[in-house]
């Protein structure tokens, strides 16, 4: 990989080793490898790396999942074949260095005084003069004076009939090649040493086994544990709740993990997230305490870790990399959604924990999965480009698992949310993780509570009470039979509605009414339903003590409409309970990354080489000048020629200046190129 060609003598025997060297050090192989590494690297950017394996199965199906797994595509950069290609690039570069260094060294020290006149005349930059009445020594002195003035070093050789003064400058340009290519080798080796090579080696020798079960760290068997110093380089993670400590990190490997033990313990004293006024996070700060009896004795080390400000302790670097919930304590109120009685139950739970509660239709398992203090979300109804955000306040995420083991995910916001000028309790639901949430918007009453709606809902599900209410209601007809039928219809409609929303009502109409009267009948059904619901609602208001002498107010009217929408959503919502977050005590957890990099010094040295190398390579030029002088009858003949291996235009300018000033000095103001 150089621009000097070291000629091999043809007599040299072509042994196998020589052929191999020739191949490994060839320019074509080098360029091919550069392109191959580039293309292979693309794979890992297109296919997301190191995701949970089930995600890949879902994405590719079992066949391709298996095929890609065999090829190591889920961790391309750790795959044997990829490391082999990189190793090959390093090897090829090494061979190239090995073959080129002797030639480079010669090129740097040799002045090439053996140059022939014909070859000088073939140079692009050349001049030739016939100097009458000038003797060679005088000419030579002028020329070396010019060389010295321009910072060239030179050698003079007397060939008998002529003399050659060979000069050069900027020979360190040749080191540019050496530095850049050595940098590739050094960085390559350093990078390989810092990669998961050691883990692979240990795994291959059967010393360690990747743990794929979902175990707590203390339950992980010794075969999946690494003692401090077992491998020179690693990058591991740990999620520490406030107030807890750990002396290990998890190393993720393919579909499992290993436990890397640390020679010290990290205790998280406090974790703080600061926010900008806009709600975006401003800083993540962990206050940690390092316990290390061996090195610190009884005086632990207190330190602050922030993003971009890791703690370097001994040879380990501890970074702020993630955050999460460390088991926040939550107070929850469970409101039944299905029964006819509204008796809320207050419970307490912890994020990460599971609760068993009695639902209206059998026991229900609640798994509290997350708590968030802030929810910065795009303003509802804003265009994607608007960049308007609103903080929706604290939320709780949980899974509700019924007796059959089926679970739905819920996300409930603690504070009512204002939408289109009205306030709602918002709860999202989805049947599987990753799907979009469907939201239930419960209108809140004057006390900012969902209670009125829930009472209304319960009233609709209390069949006895409903029947009694309808019987009391003023009737449009005197006929008791008809009255009885009508009430039954109303009850049926309410029942249909709370089981399946408005869709169930229109569905029923389609089933029982002939098509020509369908539209009319559906309209009638919905009117009756609405009247009935309104009657129940008024009853709820009356029970609350709302003064209805002036009729139903605008606010109550809006509430009624919102309540109908919410009731229509309830069948989709699917939970027998509405879970209201009433209080919390947040416990945060800080995600720390701990790294140990055995070869970082090697890699950084490579970086330094690379920077020095590229500058030498492109911005310096190895320039050579030759003066060929022969005594001829009555004077001397002088040929001046030169070449530079970079920055040709600048060299041409320098040569022209040199040529002109020499001509002036030597009294040959008209450069003459005869012959």
């Amino acid at each position, binding site marked *: 990989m150089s621009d000097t060609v070291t000629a091999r003598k043809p007599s040299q025997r072509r042994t196998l080793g020589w052929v191999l060297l020739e191949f490994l050090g060839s320019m074509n192989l080098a360029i091919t490898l550069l*392109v191959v590494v580039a293309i292979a690297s*693309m794979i890992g*950017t297109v296919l997301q790396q190191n995701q949970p394996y089930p995600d890949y199965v879902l994405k590719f199906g079992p066949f391709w999942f298996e095929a890609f797994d065999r090829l190591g595509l889920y961790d391309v950069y750790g795959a044997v074949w990829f490391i082999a290609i990189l190793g090959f690039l390093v090897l090829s570069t090494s061979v190239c260095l090995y073959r080129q260094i002797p030639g480079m060294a010669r090129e740097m020290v040799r002045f090439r005084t053996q140059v022939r006149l014909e070859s000088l005349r073939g140079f692009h930059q050349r001049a030739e003069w016939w100097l009458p009445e000038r003797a060679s020594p005088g000419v030579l002195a002028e020329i070396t004076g010019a060389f010295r003035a321009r910072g060239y070093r030179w050698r003079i050789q007397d060939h008998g009939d002529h003399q050659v003064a060979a000069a050069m400058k900027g020979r360190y340009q040749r080191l540019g090649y050496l530095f850049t290519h050595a940098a590739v080798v050094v960085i390559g080796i350093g990078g390989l040493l810092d990669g998961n090579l050691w883990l692979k080696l240990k795994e291959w020798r059967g010393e360690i086994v990747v743990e794929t079960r979902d175990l707590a760290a203390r339950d992980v068997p010794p075969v999946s544990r690494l003692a401090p110093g077992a491998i020179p380089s690693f990058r591991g993670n740990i999620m520490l709740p406030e107030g807890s400590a750990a002396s290990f990190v998890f190393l993720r490997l393919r579909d499992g993990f290993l436990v890397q033990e640390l020679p010290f313990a990290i205790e998280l004293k406090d974790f703080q997230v600061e926010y900008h006024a806009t709600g975006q*996070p401003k800083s993540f700060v962990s206050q940690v305490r390092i316990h290390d009896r061996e090195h610190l004795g009884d005086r632990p080390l207190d330190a602050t870790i922030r993003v971009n400000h890791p703690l370097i302790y001994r040879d380990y670097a501890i970074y702020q990399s993630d955050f999460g919930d460390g088991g926040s304590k939550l107070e929850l109120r469970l409101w039944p959604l299905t029964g006819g009685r509204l008796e809320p139950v207050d419970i307490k739970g912890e994020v990460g924990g599971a609760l068993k509660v009695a639902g209206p239709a059998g026991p229900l398992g609640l798994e509290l999965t997350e708590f968030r203090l802030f929810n910065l979300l795009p303003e509802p109804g804003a265009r994607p480009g608007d960049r308007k955000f609103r903080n929706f306040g604290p939320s709780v995420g949980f899974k509700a698992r019924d007796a059959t083991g089926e679970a739905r995910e819920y996300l409930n916001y603690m504070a009512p949310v204002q939408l289109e000028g009205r306030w709602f309790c918002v709860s999202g639901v989805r049947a599987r993780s990753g799907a979009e949430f469907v939201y239930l918007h419960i209108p809140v009453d004057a006390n900012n509570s969902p209670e009125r709606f829930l009472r209304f809902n319960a009233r609709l599900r209390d069949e006895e009470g409903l029947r009694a209410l309808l019987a009391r209601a003023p009737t449009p007809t005197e006929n008791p039979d008809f009255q009885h039928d009508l009430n039954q219809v109303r009850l049926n409609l309410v029942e249909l509605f709370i089981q399946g929303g408005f869709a169930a009502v229109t569905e029923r109409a389609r089933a029982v009414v002939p098509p020509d009267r369908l539209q009319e009948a559906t309209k009638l059904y919905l009117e009756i339903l609405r009247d009935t619901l309104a009657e129940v609602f008024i009853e709820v208001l009356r029970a609350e003590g709302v003064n209805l002498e002036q009729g139903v107010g605008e606010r109550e009217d809006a509430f009624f409409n919102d309540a109908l929408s919410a009731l229509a959503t309830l069948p989709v919502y699917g939970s027998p309970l509405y879970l209201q977050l009433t209080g919390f005590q947040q416990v945060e957890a800080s995600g720390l990354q701990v790294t140990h990099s055995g070869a970082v010094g090697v890699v950084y040295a490579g970086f330094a080489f690379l920077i020095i190398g590229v500058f030498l390579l492109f911005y310096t030029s190895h320039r050579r000048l030759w003066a060929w002088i022969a005594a001829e009858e009555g004077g001397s003949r002088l040929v001046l020629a030169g070449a530079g291996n970079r920055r040709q235009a600048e060299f041409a300018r320098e040569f022209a200046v040199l040529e002109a000033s020499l001509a002036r000095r030597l009294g040959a103001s008209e450069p003459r190129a005869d012959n």
Partner: protein
Amino acid sequence: MVVTREAMLEPWEQPAFWRRLTIWDALWTLLAAVGAIYAGWFYRAEMDGYEIAILFGGALALIAWGLYWKPARLFTLAVALLALLALWRYGTDYESRKSVFLLKYFLESQAAFMWMSALYVLATVVYFAALFSRSEFVGQTATALTWSATVLGMTGLLTRWRESYLLGADIGHIPVSNLYEVFILFALITALLYLFYEDRHRTRAMGGFALLAISGAVAFLLWYTFDREAHHIQPLIPALQSYWMKIHVPANFVGYGAFALAAMLGVAYLLRQRAETHRPDGVLATVLPPLELLDDVMYKAIALGFVAFTIATILGALWAAEAWGGYWSWDPKETWALIVWLNYAAWLHLRLTKGWRGAPMAWWAVIGLFVTLFAFLGVNMFLSGLHSYGTL
């Protein structure tokens, strides 16, 4: 080679570097040094040791730039004066941008960027007009337009820097933190690189092609501003709150700018070559820049881009070691930086060792732009990762 009279009369001994400096060189150095020292003293409370080091390192680089290339001085001076004027008119109230005439229509960052955009597009047209009309005057106009656009764009960036602090001390940051801001940086750096080659090679023939790349960036910028409203100043996420950003990002954009310039010259090369083979007497074959020039500048741009990109990637790795826990994580952005680097490494090997020239290298430079563009834009649009700060 033409030898000037001055060169003929040059003394035998080449004077030492410092003896060749003129009074203007000395003034320039002094001015830049005083400016840096004043800024350092004025903002000393806001900066840590690294930032002071970057300030003075930047001042040294600026001095060297001005000594190496004289037009850089006038440019720096113009930008500095306009930016100071903007700062003075702003005072301490961000809302001045709506009431002060000079700010509202001229120097407020958004206004300055609009001027920059308009002038770049105009310059593109005028460069092509100069190419076909062969008028010296039209050419000078194009150059003046490009300089003006660059001065206003750079002023806008500096003003935006200040504006971010006016919004809130904890919001303030150098405006190279998202896709919108770096696109402006890209346009400015590409323009400066082009203007340098225009000056050094004494030809405006490449102008239209270079400015075409910049106009492309401007088109994106306008869409990004008006459709996505991406121009609002946003606070920095914690991962970006580091002095490394000040050196990593600009270094990267010298690389991107140089690669973009090389690709546009590659396009000009291919057009000229095609014109020469098909219609040697046609207009295109005579007005387009000569092949040797294009080949030469293309190489120089790629070499410069490669050096800058190498440094930028190494700076990125050092930053990553501080922010993400390792100098290399095979994050999509990192990986694509490697791909770009490998691509141009292969290009340079072919040119310097195998001696390839001409159409294949021009094609490669053009394809190289797409690789670069993907690393710069595509990764943010299509791939996710640690480096996803600039989503569309």
